[in-house]
């Protein structure tokens, strides 16, 4: 076991903090996009994920994902409560000179954000308690296994590596395990819950675009931890990941706005925010396997592709409310496959050469295998979980509750109270309780 490296440890610790911040960031990104009557519920779905997944992670989640089972499919069930090996270094395919709890914290934040991403597909209409239960089941049945497949490189001699990791599928920071996984699950839940009242008819414009931009900004900031932190050390690989993340995101933002400008005449701020997220998603799997100029291209294509994809729901009539499919599934697929084209060992020696670097289609086929395995498994499993919940305790709120607004009916609150009864409030102080039933 190597000596602890303080620089690597500092980087992984701060990266864990950055990735934790992404989930509130997502809450604001999503919360800003919904109408004023369901902001809090939207955010609460993310915060519930933070809460539930953290507790499960201590109980058995870390063990189920990275526990040394020898199996390519799943770790071990072990309720030690993370109390063992507090002073060990990380062994994941090789030794990393960082404390195992730094790695466990970092990976926890990935497990938190993945179910939170799904919630965008079912805005305005989910029962909160059912959502909480869904998250607990979903991470156990879907996320922990899939993360084992992709992120567990086994012991220092690689025994017990996940099957996709062992196969050589390149996914540096979670294009498959996080984004394709969440995107496919979002599609499944959108189908389970059905369309919102007013879908395709009412204006459902974002209630606060500054909040959307704040969320996107925190996501961007946190994503440096997500991608560059995945190097598990402060080194050239991390630096490459950071640079590629930045430039791909910038290019995707441009790509999305160009489509809007050309097609609709106006580049929008929602487009800027969405483009940025699309770029972040797309560069996630390949951020250390490609050169910076290729990252720019991957981002640009992601921006264009995703901006076109978010219209699909109107065509195929599923209400993926905040475009989890259009952004995370499509962006994740593109990013995972793009390594098959742009991958080069010049960027990272243990990577692989893609089609454009003389590596033939081998890598591309591997990438496609990884992407579609996760997509199919996640979609099917999520659909089954969702349907079971809908048929038993119910997943969708009533029509009246949806019309009145899920914030007031499920959480007994409304997001803003800009009037103040006792005078002098922002609007002169009159309309008393705008929460009420009316």
């Amino acid at each position, binding site marked *: 076991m190597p000596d602890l490296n303080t620089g690597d440890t500092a980087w992984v610790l701060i990266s864990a903090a950055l990735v934790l911040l992404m989930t509130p960031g997502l809450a604001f990104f999503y919360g800003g996009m919904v109408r004023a009557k369901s902001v809090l519920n939207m955010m609460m779905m993310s915060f519930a994920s933070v809460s539930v997944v953290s507790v499960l992670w201590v109980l058995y989640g870390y063990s189920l994902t990275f526990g040394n089972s020898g199996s390519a499919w799943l770790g071990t069930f072990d309720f030690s409560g993370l109390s063992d090996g507090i002073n060990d270094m990380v062994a994941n395919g090789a030794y990393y000179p960082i404390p195992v709890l730094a790695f466990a914290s970092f990976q926890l934040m990935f497990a938190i954000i993945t179910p939170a991403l799904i919630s965008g597909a079912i805005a305005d209409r989910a029962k909160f308690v059912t959502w909480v239960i869904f998250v607990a089941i979903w991470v156990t049945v879907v996320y922990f296994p899939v993360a084992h497949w992709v992120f567990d490189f086994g012991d220092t001699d690689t025994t017990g590596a996940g099957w996709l990791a062992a196969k050589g599928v390149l996914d540096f920071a979670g294009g498959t395990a996080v984004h394709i996984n969440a995107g496919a699950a979002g599609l499944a839940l959108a189908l389970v819950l059905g369309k919102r009242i007013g879908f395709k008819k009412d204006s459902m414009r974002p209630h606060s675009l500054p909040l959307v931009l704040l969320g996107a900004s925190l996501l961007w900031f946190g994503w440096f931890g997500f991608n560059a932190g995945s190097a598990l050390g402060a080194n050239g690989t991390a630096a490459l990941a950071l640079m590629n993340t930045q430039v791909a995101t910038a290019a995707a933002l441009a790509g999305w706005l160009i489509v809007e400008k050309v097609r609709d005449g106006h580049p929008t701020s929602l487009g800027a925010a969405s483009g940025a997220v699309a770029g972040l998603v797309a560069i996630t799997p390949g951020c250390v396997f490609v050169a910076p100029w290729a990252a720019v291209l991957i981002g640009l294509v992601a921006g264009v592709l995703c901006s076109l994809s978010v219209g699909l729901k109107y065509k195929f009539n599923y209400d993926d409310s905040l475009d989890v499919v259009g952004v995370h599934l499509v962006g994740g697929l593109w990013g995972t496959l793009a390594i098959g084209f742009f991958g080069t060992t010049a960027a990272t020696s243990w990577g692989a050469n893609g089609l454009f670097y003389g590596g033939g289609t081998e890598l591309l086929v591997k990438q496609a295998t990884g992407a579609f395995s996760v997509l199919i498994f996640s979609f099917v499993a999520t659909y089954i979980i969702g349907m079971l919940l809908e048929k038993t305790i119910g997943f969708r709120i009533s029509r009246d509750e949806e*019309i*009145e607004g899920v914030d007031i009916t499920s959480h*007994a*609150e409304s997001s803003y109270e800009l009037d103040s009864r006792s005078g002098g409030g922002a609007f002169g102080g*009159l*309309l*008393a*309780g*705008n*929460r*009420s*039933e*009316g």
Partner: protein
Amino acid sequence: MKLITAIIKPFKLEDVKAALESQGIHGMTVSEASGYGRQRGHTEVYRGAEYTVDLVPKVRIEVLIDDADAETVVDAIIGVAQTGRIGDGKVWVMPVEQVIRVRTGERGSSAL
């Protein structure tokens, strides 16, 4: 001509709009209000504190209409805005001496 003012529950706005349209009503003005009457507010508990909310949010709809149509329009509004629970609202009718369409300067019934 008359001005019909209706104070209704907010979520009934869409229904009232639809009802007026089916009556061939050409226009309306909508604004926010709050109020109370029989529905004397209610007690809420929040984070351990208890207090009374007495002004409840409402929507105000105003329709300018020919004298002859007033009664049917009132009935149309009441028809859809009624839930039978307190707080359903009030409708009242006032005389209007003159109406002018700003765009054209037309006056009277033809301005409606």
